Each structure stands twice: as structure tokens, then as C-alpha cells.
């Protein structure tokens, strides 16, 4: 196995009393796609923002026993060193491309911002490079489009602009936070293809956050399932879909509405709601909703290695049965 590009061990994020991310560990290798799934508020985005040091220090406390990018410790880096890292070595794509673009700057300048900041290009050179990046991300008529403002772009085109910004620094790791959620289905497919093509061409590591399980099956090499701020299961993508080990993963997969099922077969929802995160969770966070819970579940289960890169946090898998 190649040495990981990003290695995170026991990452915790607190916002005051709110324990948003709980002992999350994962790693991403160069050229690999790690999918992160989980419902809203499960800590997916918070985890990634914490990795990039983007939580304001006054609001959030980030701790980890290990947080390394390409062998360098990120927690001990100065703000300035982190700014040098962000945008150049690590790119970030947001969910809502309209909200993530400055309405008062032309897209050419916003792409150029990265080039000026990280590659020391002057205005003229950064403009030419921005046009090239727009062309590469499939924006037609890039020369004219570079001089336009975000509101003059359609949703899909805006996301292409965001991708161009994220790629401008030629990052080794790209974090895509639900890049297709705000888009039409037809546009989604194009954006997915674009990001994958770019990854294959550049060999960068990719973290793909989504709650779309069908999409995840197509893009990810490995999948990490998060629930209530913690990882409940991690597995290679084919293993996860074939044999989900954690009851929550199984529930998620069972709740997908499918067109190939006979009429009358309904998608099953998981009963209940996720726990509130501002109180300590005793035991397994999923236990109150779990159809398989037993007395052992009052103690929080560790991630149990199950071979072939599969890990899941459930006492049922430890061989102990009620």
C-alpha cells in the first residue's frame, strides 16, 4: 500500500457543548476516491472543514491524535502555512456553487485569485490561465465567460467554475462536498464525469461527500459511513453494497427507492431520528433506532476490523450475541 496522502486519526470537533465529530479516523491514498456518506448533520462536512483548519478557532475546538497531509502534521502548522496549503495542495468544491462564488467578482478573477495567491502569476497571466481552466472544465466560450459574473451562469456552469477554482492550484487532494446535490440530474452526470476524468488525468486523491448512495456506488473506491459524528462503517465500495455489516448501513441501503422492484414494495425508512449532539451519547449512537440492539449496546462499540479493509462499529460483529 502506498503511503496515504491524508491520514486522520481520532479527530474530534467540539463547538462548545456540541460534540460534532467523534473520534473519526480515515485515510486517503493518492489516486483514490474515498466516499463519505451520512445524513445531514452527521458530521461529514464538519470533518473535512476541520481537516482544512477552516473552523474559526473561537467557535470550534479541533483535536486529533494524528492529522497528517503528505506526512506533514497539519495541527501544528501556522495559519499562514495552512493558507499556503489550502487552494494549492488541497482543493475544495462546495455544494451550492452560487452561494460559494463572490457575486461581485468576475469568475475569471475568482479563478485568478488562486493563481495569483499560490503561483505568483500577474493579472494578465492569471487571466489567460483562468480561461484555460474554464476550457478544461468544459465551459463553452471561456474567453467571454471569464469576464462574466456568477449570476450570468447556470447552475451546472457555476459548478464547473467552482471546479476550475479548485483545480487552479493543481491540488493533490480534492474534497468535493456534495458537488452535485444542487444540480439537475442530467447536469449531475456531466459534473460527476468531469471530476472523475480530472482525477484520472491528475492522479489526485479525492474525498467525495454525498448522501446519494447510488452516486456513491459509481464514484467511490472506498466508502466511509458516518452517523451522529462518528464512523460506523468503512469498506471497499463493492463490499459495502454487497454485504453491509452495520445495521445503519443496511438500513440506508434498504431505504433507497428502486425502480426495478415490483409495484407495492416500498422503500423502508429507518424509524426514529438521529440523537441530538449536544448531550453525551452513552453507548452506541444508533442503538435507539436499531432493530438488532441488545444489552451490550449501552456501551459504545469500537470499529471492529472484519478483514479486506472492512471496519464496522457494532457489537453484533464481535461475535458476542445476546
Amino acid at each position: 500500500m502506498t503511503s496515504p496522502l491524508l491520514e486522520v486519526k481520532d479527530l474530534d470537533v467540539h463547538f462548545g457543548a456540541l460534540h460534532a465529530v467523534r473520534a473519526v479516523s480515515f485515510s486517503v491514498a493518492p489516486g483514490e476516491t474515498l466516499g463519505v456518506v451520512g445524513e445531514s448533520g452527521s458530521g461529514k462536512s464538519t470533518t473535512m472543514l476541520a481537516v482544512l483548519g477552516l473552523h474559526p478557532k473561537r467557535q470550534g475546538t479541533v483535536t486529533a491524535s494524528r492529522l497528517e497531509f503528505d506526512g506533514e502534521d497539519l495541527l501544528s502548522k501556522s495559519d499562514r502555512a495552512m493558507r499556503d496549503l489550502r487552494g494549492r495542495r488541497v482543493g475544495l468544491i462546495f455544494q451550492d456553487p452560487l452561494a460559494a462564488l463572490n457575486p461581485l467578482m468576475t469568475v475569471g478573477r475568482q479563478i485568478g485569485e488562486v493563481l495569483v495567491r499560490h503561483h505568483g502569476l500577474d493579472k494578465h497571466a492569471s487571466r489567460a490561465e483562468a480561461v484555460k481552466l474554464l476550457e478544461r472544465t468544459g465551459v463553452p466560450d471561456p474567453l467571454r465567460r471569464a469576464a462574466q459574473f456568477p449570476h450570468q451562469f447556470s447552475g451546472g456552469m457555476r459548478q464547473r467554475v467552482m471546479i476550475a477554482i479548485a483545480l487552479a492550484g493543481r491540488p493533490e487532494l480534492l474534497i468535493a462536498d456534495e458537488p452535485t446535490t444542487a444540480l439537475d440530474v442530467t447536469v449531475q452526470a456531466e459534473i460527476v464525469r468531469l471530476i472523475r476524468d480530472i482525477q484520472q488525468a491528475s492522479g489526485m486523491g479525492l474525498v467525495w461527500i454525498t448522501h446519494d448512495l447510488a452516486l456513491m456506488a459509481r464514484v467511490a473506491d472506498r466508502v466511509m459511513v458516518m452517523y451522529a459524528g462518528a464512523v460506523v462503517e468503512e469498506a471497499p465500495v463493492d463490499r459495502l453494497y454487497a454485504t453491509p455489516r452495520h445495521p445503519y448501513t443496511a438500513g440506508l441501503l434498504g431505504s433507497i427507492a428502486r425502480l426495478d422492484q415490483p409495484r407495492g414494495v416500498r422503500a423502508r425508512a429507518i424509524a426514529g431520528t438521529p440523537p441530538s449532539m449536544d448531550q453525551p451519547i452513552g453507548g452506541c449512537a444508533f442503538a435507539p433506532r436499531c432493530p438488532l440492539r441488545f444489552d451490550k449496546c449501552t456501551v459504545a462499540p469500537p470499529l471492529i476490523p472484519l478483514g479486506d479493509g472492512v471496519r464496522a462499529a457494532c457489537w453484533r460483529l464481535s461475535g458476542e450475541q445476546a
Partner: protein
Amino acid sequence: MTGFSNRFLIGHAVGIAGVAIIVAAVAIAVFAPLIAPVPASQIDLHARLVPPAFVEGGSAKHFFGTDNLGRDILARLIYGSRISLAVGTAAALLGAVIGSLMGILAGYFGGRVDAAISWFVDVQLAFPFTLLAIFLLGTLGGGFYAVVIVLALATWVNYARVVRAQVLTVKVQDYVLAARAVGVGTPRTLWRYIFANSTAPIIVVASFSTAQAILTQAALSFLGVGIDPSIPSWGAMLNDGREYLQKAWWIATFPGLAIALTVLGVNLFGDWLRDRLDPRSAR
């Protein structure tokens, strides 16, 4: 539908009226030497307290009459516009610079910075400003720049409050996070991303602050502090006319009307701007 378009048109008519008043006032101030019938300080002791031309005993030579030294009121009004507009605009601009800066700092950094700046704002709003202005002008001495600075101190709080509120909403936008995510530094984020997206209310506040500054400057001149009394200004003319209110009402009345009209124009313009720039109010 007609209700909508009527309101739209009336709104525009009011805005245009405001703009027309402002343009007229600026033109008068700029071309004062060309318009004024006689120099503003030309004393004619043979023609003291002449009533306006349209009143019995008035003379066509002095359309708005003369004051106690025989100076032409119309000429003094025309020259007086220069001080009012210059002081009003300069004070509003200086206030905008100070207030915006404070508002940005308070809104962006929050915490103690915010508490300190908000405390200053509250104290100033609670303190009778005229008293503060008289005290400051008494210590600083008068003069154009002193008055501008003092009036900027009167208006900065307006900007600081509005900008702070705006920055609070803008700083949590995704594009600010996105800027940080590509490594843009704090000063640049503040300027290009946060301040640039907070300017619309500043323009509106600027118009109202200009009106406020013109009014306050007149009040200070009336009280005899600030601008050198030998320079004609509307506020000083009011003060001059006070003693003669019984005998010669025109000395104080016309500068009073000039102040009211100018302030009205600026306020109408400001109202119209606010409706145009605030997406929440109906167009």
C-alpha cells in the same frame, strides 16, 4: 397591477425630485460667483433691512431683501450653499470611512472588538451630540476642518451600526468560506469579499448622514461655534436674523427655507435609493 405601477412611478417621481433639488443646490454652489447679483459681503448701509422684492417697500435690486448691514440676502444664500454642501458631504464621507471601518471590525472579529466598538456607539448615541460638538469645537477651535471632523463624529455611528449588521450576514456566506478555502488572507477577504458585498446600505446611510450633517452644521453656526462667521453660511444667517425676527422676518426665513429644502432633497433621494437598493422592499 395599476397599484404596483403607480407606486413605482410615484417612487420614481419623488426620487427624481430629490435628485433635481440636489443637482440645483450643487450647481448654485459651484457657479455662485456667476449667479450672485452682488458679492455676498458687500455692505450697503443705505439699504439696511430692505424687504424682499415681492413685499411692499421691497426693491427689485434685492430680491430676498437685505440684512441689518445692507447685505443682499439672495447673494448670501447663494454663497452660503457652498459651506453647507461642502461641510455636509465631507462630513458624511469622513463618517463613512470611520464608521465602515469600525463596523467591519466589529462585525468580522466579534467578541471583545465588537463589544468595545458597540460600547462607543451606544455611549455616543446616549450623549447629547450638540453638547459634545460645542465642547470639541471650543477646544479644537473652529474652522472648516474642525467642523467636518466633529460632524463626522456625529455620523460615524450610523455607518458603524449598519455595516456591522451587514457584515454579520455576509461573513457567514459560503463564498467567504470558499475564499478562505483557497487560501485568501484575512485583509483581502475582508476587503474584496465582505466589505464589497456590504456596500449597498452604506450608500443609503450616506445620503441620510449628509442631510444630518447639513442640519447639524447649520445648528452649530447658529450657535456661533465652528465656521468663521465672516464666511456666509445658512446657519450663521439664521443667527444674524434672530434679533430682527420682529422687524425683518426675511433675514432668518430664507436661509431656514434653504436648509429645509436641501435636507428634504437629500432625504427624498436617500429614501428612493433605499427602495431601489434594498431587495426586500417592493420595487
